């Protein structure tokens, strides 16, 4: 078990915690914040896998994943604002 394996397991633990928060989370804002952590952890996992497989091409995927995660987070923020709005 090398260092990159342990790093991937640690990222998976972070995603697992975020999934528990999505499952339990009392409001939509909690779930959106946990989803943001899942996006960020995905970027980290892609970079670690690129390092482990020695494939620098995967770093381009991480670059696109950062932008996709940003757009998704902004969309989630608007969704949270509208869903929990009480008249």
């Amino acid at each position, binding site marked *: 078990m090398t260092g990159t394996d342990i790093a991937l397991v640690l990222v998976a633990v972070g995603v697992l915690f975020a999934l528990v928060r999505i499952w339990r989370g009392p409001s939509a804002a909690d779930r959106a914040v946990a989803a943001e952590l899942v996006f960020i952890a995905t970027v980290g996992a892609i970079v670690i896998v690129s390092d482990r497989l020695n494939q*620098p091409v995967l770093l381009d995927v991480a670059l696109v994943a950062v932008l996709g995660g940003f757009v998704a987070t902004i969309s989630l923020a608007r969704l949270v604002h509208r869903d929990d709005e009480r008249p």
Partner: protein
Amino acid sequence: MDVLATTCLLMGAALIALAGLGLIRLPDPLTRASAVSKAAVLGVAMILLGALLDAPSPRVAAVLLATLVLHLFTVPLGGLALGKAAYRSGTARPPLTQVDEPAEARGTSTDQPDG
């Protein structure tokens, strides 16, 4: 160099796991957004540094630098948007939050919305 790269990867992954722990342990959406947008940003930055130290070449350095800059710009903005949305939706005000600066700026700090 290899030991340094692996140490950076492990520290970054541990920071992401720590952000998840903060997501579980902290009491309300604002503090959880704070944990995610601080710890996870630094974690991904450490992972990018470790990947650069492991395979130093100009192409890898260019892509990793672009990823790092975009990440450092976008994730705090996303955390801010989520925090503002959580505040405006009214579900992010637990009893232990005592300071309400947006309401004080509006001059309506006395009425506490129930939510």
